[in-house]
């Protein structure tokens, strides 16, 4: 009996140590990734790097048009995916009844989230670039990225709306407000922090995607800034890819610097959004 207890306790200690090591290993890998990007990237980043176009077959100069291209793509992605995604989230949380259609919609949304990004790229090439005739452009790339971002925004919106207690809705309805008025004036404002944060997280993922814009938006090298939605652009993730694999004799620090700009942009915005949400949460208590 006593040996059994001792053995069980020893097994428990061993299990805790082993699983703890596994968790520590993954956390350490993440920290290593962060450290190497920051440490190798920082020497490459300067004011000039951020505000000058590439020069000398991209082996010198900065990444200004690349940043602008990524911002333009992200802006269009947001403009398309936010209204549609938020509306779809409202539908699921406020209008949808429990039934087969809703179930299929939910399955479709989570399945969409798992569709490989290169498949979105093929879809965008077939529909936006070729059939609709947008060519390689901000418009085609932004629409493609919007499709990819939708499931995240829908899910975030639905979750944020679900957090709002039904007392609020009922009180508004009891005062004679219609369903939409209740959603628009009561539920949406209360859920806004959650929706905004979730959407920013979704959009920040789109910023880093390369495969969907490979055939739909990006240019290898383009000194001029985009002039219309139909211009093709340079973009941060694609720039990293071509600099890392196709430009021979380039200084490493340009690639690391670009990677740092991309990762810092993505994570700082996400962290800021998450921080803002928890601030808002502390303010409002149900």
């Amino acid at each position: 009996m006593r040996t059994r207890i001792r053995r069980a306790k020893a097994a428990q200690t061993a299990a805790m140590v082993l699983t703890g090591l596994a968790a520590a290993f993954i956390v350490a890998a993440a920290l290593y990734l962060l450290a190497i990007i920051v440490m190798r990237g920082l020497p490459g980043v300067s004011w000039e790097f951020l505000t000058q176009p590439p020069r000398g077959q991209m082996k010198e100069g900065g990444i200004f048009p690349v940043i602008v291209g990524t911002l333009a793509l992200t802006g269009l992605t947001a403009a398309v995916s936010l209204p549609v995604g938020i509306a779809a989230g409202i539908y699921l949380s406020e209008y949808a009844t429990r039934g087969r259609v809703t179930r299929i919609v939910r399955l479709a949304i989570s399945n969409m989230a798992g569709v490989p990004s290169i498949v979105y790229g093929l879809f965008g090439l077939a529909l936006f670039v070729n059939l609709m005739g947008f060519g390689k452009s901000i418009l085609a790339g932004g629409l493609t990225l919007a499709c990819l971002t939708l499931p995240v925004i829908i899910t975030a919106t639905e979750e944020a709306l679900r957090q709002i207690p039904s007392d609020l809705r009922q009180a508004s309805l009891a005062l004679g407000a219609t369903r939409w008025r209740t959603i628009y004036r009561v539920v949406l404002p209360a859920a806004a922090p959650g929706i905004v944060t979730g959407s920013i997280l979704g959009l920040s993922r789109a910023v880093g995607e390369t495969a969907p814009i490979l055939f739909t938006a990006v240019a290898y090298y383009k000194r001029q800034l985009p002039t219309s939605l139909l211009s093709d652009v340079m973009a941060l993730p694609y720039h990293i890819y071509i600099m890392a694999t196709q430009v021979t004799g380039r200084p490493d620090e340009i690639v690391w610097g670009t990677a740092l700009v991309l990762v810092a942009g993505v994570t700082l915005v996400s962290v800021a959004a998450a921080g803002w949400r928890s601030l808002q949460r502390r303010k409002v208590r149900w």
Partner: protein
Amino acid sequence: MARSSTTRRRIGRPVSSRAADGAVRKLITANGLVAILILAAIFLFLAFNSQRALQEVGILTMLTGREWYPTIGVPRFGFLPLMAGSMVVTLTALVMSVPVSIAAAVFVSEFATRRVKEISKSIIEFMAAVPSVVYGFVGLAVVVPWVKEVFQLSSGLSALSAAVVLAFMIAPTIVSIAEDALHAVPNELRQGSLALGNTRWQTTYKVVLPSASSGVLAGVMLGMGRAIGETMAVLMLTGNAAILPSSVFDSVRTITGTIAAEMGNVVQGGLHQSVLFNLGLVLFTITFIINLVADLVLEKQRKRWRR
């Protein structure tokens, strides 16, 4: 007089806002169905653009062909080397990632204090937010030379290098879904087991893990779906030789890598392009099935504890 005007307003307002209510409802419902629409459109557009390949080469020839030479005089469009490449990379990544990720999820869910839990979760979230092209570049700088040296290879660009990097990339997915599944197990079960004299570890592997097994499995499947669909890191690290691999040290070319590398150089409307669309259709079908099964498993698991 004053009375009648308020009455009129009272009657007037609900009618117009009720009409608006109905219109908004229709608009929002239409948006709600957008996910189904897009999924269907993806399938249709891939299928439509694959037509030429299906007619001129044939699906069986492609799926069973052992050679991928798309640009020679009489091109060969065999998918087998590419599917084998995707398989080798994905399975190797899973073998490395799954045990460590599940163990980490167990620790975070069952043993860690609240503070450790929150910190490790947000660090793992950072890992999920890093773009795949950055993983690819860091892999080129760190993993490829390491693999080359440790295994004495002529080139570190191999299935193994890509798998190592992929293992890290899919870890956040597996950890967070498995952790959710473990966390969803009701505390009464744990308390019941502890009350019977089990240690926490005995409780974990005899009660909690079996109860959460389907959710953990779904996490592994979603990680697998992510690994098969991952493009940029794999494209940068495998070396992209389209031959049937004999070991993980070989250079391989995956389905995703092939599409990404070749689609930019094909003739618009040509056979090669159509074949690449068909390859995309194959990839879409594989991941669609994996995701669907994982979702159904997760749904079942969720229903189990909803009372």
